[in-house]
């Protein structure tokens, strides 16, 4: 039987269509995925993402260990609650997973990793601990709720106790506040303002109920995917995997090259790729003709070069088909391309991702020069 989150019964009560996802029974939607998508862009949505893997790293060498394991540098985290987005690479600089690392009080860390990569991630971390004095512990008693959208801050303040709510409201993006086992951080996967809360399973049901009583709309994994696609946030397993390095999928900004002497796993291979120039780049495409691009479809350029759609779908905000694609570097000058959709070639134009940020701000409509 699949795992269930602490909110399982609540999902059923809210009328969720439950689907198996990475070994968990999760809500796909609660009636209309598109309505849920708009709720996050215009109001507040509540996601249960407790299926994600939470891994605590402690011990005297925790910092040293993670500085060696991650392409981004956890030394940038100075205050407890601060968050860092990073890739974890193999020796060839392929992306094993992407994750968020939060600094905990006392020089410990909390990692949130993809549910589908749980076993691989844990095995990789454990195999590389070597003689480091680190404790790697997966947590099973925690829930993760994401409260996302322009109304998130107001609802958070209304529901959380006064001091925690005020502290949360003052947070900058990618910062968080700890209160006992609770972490409230200004992070998310939607392109909107919002929070992710990691808390004991025992408190999750009541909190979720209160968020929704205060006006948050439950949102399933379906809208989570269209929201992150509009925000051009990569999905591991679609836009990246162990055959792709960060420079080839728009994540060069997450690689901490300084200090030079930091030898993280994959650095040598990644530096060699940077030296000779990455063969592939990430691109954003908006379809001009009818249809919906889907992952795996070919992207065709006038010079006969080919790329591939890594994530595609319908953008509820733009009401158009959109795609993230991996394209040959020598095509980065092209303003347009064709996507081969079920035997038809449909014109698309390049944009600089994201497609949508903060509600209806269609920054994406700026064509790449």
């Amino acid at each position, binding site marked *: 039987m699949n795992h269930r989150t602490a909110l399982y019964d609540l999902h059923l009560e809210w009328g969720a269509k439950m689907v198996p996802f990475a070994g968990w029974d999760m809500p796909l939607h609660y009636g209309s995925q598109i309505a849920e998508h708009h709720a996050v862009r215009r109001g507040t949505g509540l996601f249960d993402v407790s299926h994600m893997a939470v891994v605590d790293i402690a011990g005297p060498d925790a910092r040293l260990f993670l500085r060696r394991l991650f392409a981004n540098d956890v030394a940038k985290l100075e205050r407890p609650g601060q968050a860092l987005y990073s890739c974890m690479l193999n020796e060839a600089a392929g992306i094993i997973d992407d994750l968020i690392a939060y600094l905990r009080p006392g020089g410990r860390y909390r990692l949130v990793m993809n549910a589908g990569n749980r076993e691989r991630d844990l095995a990789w971390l454990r195999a590389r601990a070597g003689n480091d004095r680190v404790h790697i512990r997966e947590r099973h008693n925690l829930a993760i709720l994401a409260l996302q959208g322009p109304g998130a801050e107001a609802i958070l303040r209304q529901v959380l106790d006064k001091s925690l709510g005020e502290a949360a409201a003052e947070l900058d993006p990618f910062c968080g506040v700890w209160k006992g086992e609770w972490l409230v951080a200004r992070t998310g996967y939607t392109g909107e303002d919002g929070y992710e809360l990691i808390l004991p399973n025992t408190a999750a049901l009541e909190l979720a109920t209160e968020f929704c009583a205060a006006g948050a709309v439950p949102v399933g994994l*379906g809208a989570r995917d*269209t929201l992150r696609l509009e925000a051009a946030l990569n999905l591991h397993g679609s836009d990246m995997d162990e055959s792709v390095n960060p420079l080839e999928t728009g994540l060069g900004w997450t690689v901490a090259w300084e200090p030079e002497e930091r030898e993280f796993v994959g650095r040598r291979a990644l530096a060699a790729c940077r030296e000779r120039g990455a063969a592939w780049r990430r691109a954003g495409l908006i379809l001009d003709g*009818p249809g*919906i691009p*889907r992952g795996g479809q070919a992207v065709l350029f006038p010079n006969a070069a080919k790329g591939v759609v890594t994530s595609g779908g*319908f953008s509820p905000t733009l009401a158009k*088909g959109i795609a993230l694609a991996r394209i040959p570097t020598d095509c980065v000058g092209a303003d347009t391309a064709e996507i081969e959709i*079920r035997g038809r070639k449909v014109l698309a134009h390049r944009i600089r991702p994201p497609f949508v940020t903060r509600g209806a701000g269609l920054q994406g409509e700026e064509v790449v020069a």
Partner: protein
Amino acid sequence: MSEIPGDLKYAKSHEWARLEDDGRVTIGITDHAQEELGDLVYVELPELDRELAAAEDLAVVESVKAASDLYCPVAGRVVEVNEALADTPELINSDPYGEGWILRLQPAADADFDALLDSEGYAAVAAAGDD
């Protein structure tokens, strides 16, 4: 439980067909099918006058989730398509047996309506999940 009107014929592949008074056949997808697909965002309709055999690819409906082929329940020629679906594919979600109809066929002389299921037969298919 999804709605399965008693006066329609059904294909196992989740299309419905209604024989109209003028001899034409209106085709759409079932309430069960639209529920399974989720919000529909695009419909690729066939060209007018196209001759279709039974079980031939008829149209493509795309939901937020994925693209799905529709198959022709009975042989015939396309005489009308629901143009409204170009801008409002969600009509299929809101009214699958009414405004969400997909196209009309002039059935071929040998169109085999008896091969289709009645509502009870289709209810069993829908209950068993996708075939």
